[in-house]
């Protein structure tokens, strides 16, 4: 019996239909056939719905980088192109499951995913389960942005690699920075009521207690994620608490609304954040946020250290004038995965995973980064940058405002212990 691939070939009747209606006369027939089968990698993030802007930017960066480094230069592994397959998970754990099944149905074995730790956790569990039950069809999770520490600690997996510093690493550096500021005597913590918000809260309290016991935590607030109309009532509490600084793990609209409410209330205190830049946030904060908003992130912001990195940004801007390189770690992840493939001359996830372990790699920005083998966590320099319009060579949202690095910590100082007890598959 003929196996019917109905679901993936739906368009062919339509194609015929278009052909008979005579449209063909003015159109060039498309020809993307290549000699060798492409290496397919999935990009699974929200591409529609509320969170879509972050996902679409990430997709654009990955696709651009694939083209920039490899496809335009004849491909990898002796002439194979890389094909990025976008999978829209709408940032929902449910949809992630469905899209994962689509990925394995199309025999994709590498999945890039970054947004939402809840999704990353789901994907991690799903992949572990799938790989255990289907030996020979394993899938690799390339996590470029989900920062819940548990992914490389208690729930660490051989099939998961993280290319971003996790929340505790970032908070470790951020609290060092705060602790060094003698003007800060009290701190207000506010966050979305979900796992990352809670990690930020718990860890901040713990670390500040160790580093600066004199700093008083004058508020520790959780608000429901994505449901707050108006942050002013929260800001009222911040004002009346007399806090010298605010720390928040908010992202998206919750981040913008919170920051604007704080600034609108006339409160002139620093706001320490993780995600207060790009995708419209920088433009919206604009002048009012200048010098007040600080971000902790891995890699570098302005000034970019090398000419290659600058050129990459410029070329990207030409191709995509309305997007920014928001997450250079996507590029690092791609380059390291390809390096692992080239080293092993294989696209088998198991081989790639072994090659990635303890890989040291020099990024476009000239820094050396390290993928620790024991828990699959990347280590690289961490920076704290400020939202400003001075000294910004590469701005965000075409707004003239952007991030300028104020404080940097080299790789060695970012290393933290891991409780990971990895179960390694036998081959």
């Amino acid at each position, binding site marked *: 019996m003929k196996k019917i691939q109905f679901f993936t070939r739906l368009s062919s009747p339509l194609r015929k239909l278009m052909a008979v209606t005579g449209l063909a006369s003015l159109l060039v027939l498309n020809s993307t056939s290549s000699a060798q089968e492409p290496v397919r990698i999935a990009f699974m993030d929200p591409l529609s719905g509320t969170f879509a802007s972050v996902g679409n930017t990430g997709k654009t960066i990955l696709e651009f980088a694939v083209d920039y480094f490899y496809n335009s230069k004849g491909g990898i592994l002796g002439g194979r192109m890389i094909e990025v397959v976008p999978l829209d998970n709408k940032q929902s754990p449910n949809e992630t499951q469905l899209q994962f099944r689509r990925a394995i149905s199309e025999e994709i074995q590498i999945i890039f995913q970054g947004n939402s730790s809840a999704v990353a956790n789901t994907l991690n569990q799903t992949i572990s389960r799938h790989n255990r039950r289907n030996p020979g069809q394993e899938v690799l999770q390339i996590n470029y942005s989900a920062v819940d520490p548990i992914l490389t600690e208690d729930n660490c997996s051989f099939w998961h690699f993280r290319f971003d510093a996790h929340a505790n690493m970032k908070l470790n550096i951020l609290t060092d920075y705060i602790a060094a500021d003698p003007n800060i005597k009290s701190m207000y913590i506010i966050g979305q009521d979900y796992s990352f918000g809670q990690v930020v809260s718990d860890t901040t309290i713990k670390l500040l207690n160790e580093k600066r016991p004199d700093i008083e935590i004058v508020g520790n607030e959780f608000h429901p994620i994505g449901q707050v109309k108006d942050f002013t009532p929260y800001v009222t509490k911040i004002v009346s608490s007399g806090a010298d600084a605010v720390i928040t793990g908010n992202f998206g609209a919750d981040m913008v609304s919170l920051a604007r409410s704080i600034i609108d209330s006339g409160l002139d205190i620093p706001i320490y954040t993780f995600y207060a830049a790009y995708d*419209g946030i920088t433009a*919206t904060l604009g002048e009012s946020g200048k010098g007040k908003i600080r971000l902790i992130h891995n890699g570098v912001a302005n000034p970019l250290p090398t000419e290659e990195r600058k050129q990459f940004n410029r070329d990207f801007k030409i191709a995509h004038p309305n997007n920014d390189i928001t997450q250079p770690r996507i590029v690092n992840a791609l380059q390291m995965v390809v390096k692992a493939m080239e080293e092993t001359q294989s696209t088998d996830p198991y081989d790639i995973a072994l090659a990635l372990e303890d890989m040291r790699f020099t990024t476009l920005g000239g820094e050396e980064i390290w993928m620790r083998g024991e828990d699959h966590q990347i280590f690289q320099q961490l920076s704290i940058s400020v939202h400003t319009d001075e000294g910004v060579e590469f701005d965000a*949202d075409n707004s003239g405002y952007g991030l300028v690095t104020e404080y940097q910590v080299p790789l060695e100082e970012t290393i933290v212990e891991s409780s990971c007890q990895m179960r390694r598959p036998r081959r």
Partner: protein
Amino acid sequence: MLEVFIFATLNGLVTGFLLFMLASGLTLIFSMMGVLNFAHASFYMLGAYFAYSLSLYFGFWTGLIFAPLIVGTLGALVERYGLRKVHASGHVAELVFTFGLAFLIEESIQFFWGRDTKNYQTPDLLDFPLFTLFGQEFSAYRGFMMAISIGIFIALYYVLTKSRVGIIIQAAITHPQTVSNLGHNVPLIFMGVFGVGTALAGLAGVIAGPVLTTFPGMATVLGSIVFVIVIIGGLGSLAGAFIASLLIGLLQSYAIASDVGMPDLLSLLGISFDRGHPLNDLWTMNLPQIAPVLPYLLLVLVLIFRPTGLLGKREE
């Protein structure tokens, strides 16, 4: 504590008045046409986006005037060419229609304006603190929001009680059948009310956009709350909607401002649980955390004990 209370009250009032601008239109539509307009908050969002685009070229004030007009026209068109057609298939069909409309408006906004947050700013003219109390500023823009909302309330009250059209509408809210029997052009009234109702929602969007952030999710955040207000206030009662709007605005604001929770209650009762208790989540719950669901709790309680709503004059 006093400053927290004062600001919580002010914030509650700002939110409450804003909610009333949405709820007033929805009450009119709901009471007269029996349509639970799920897309009402989407018109609010459209207002914010139109005003944003207009403000880029002509400034904030042009947006303030024209965006609600555009939204109102769109609303009237939707009523004329969409809802009226669906009307024959019954209330569930109408409701499902508005449900789909809300979905479509959100998607269209993402299509035309993109998915990121929009840099829609308050006008420079109002970019100063109105007053400073206990070190906290109350921005002039918030004062302006309140003034507009109160102005709308007064205007609406005046039109509905003094003008001929208003009296017909009032009658149509409480006795929709009778009014059509009296020979008034009910379809035209419906279209007008729908247009005005959505224009009010649009106006709310215009003035809320700069402070509450203009982004594609802004309708979802408000959507069902407005419903809740209309139901709590009671069918056919604008006054009820007004009271319910302020009630919910203040309720949420006070709940966030308060710091009490189960731990306080338990310690008052002298009970304590350790963290490992299976119901630990319940014992550590606090009021700010559940503030957003309070309106729904209120809704369920009101419906169980007083199905007509606070000031409702009729059921169904």
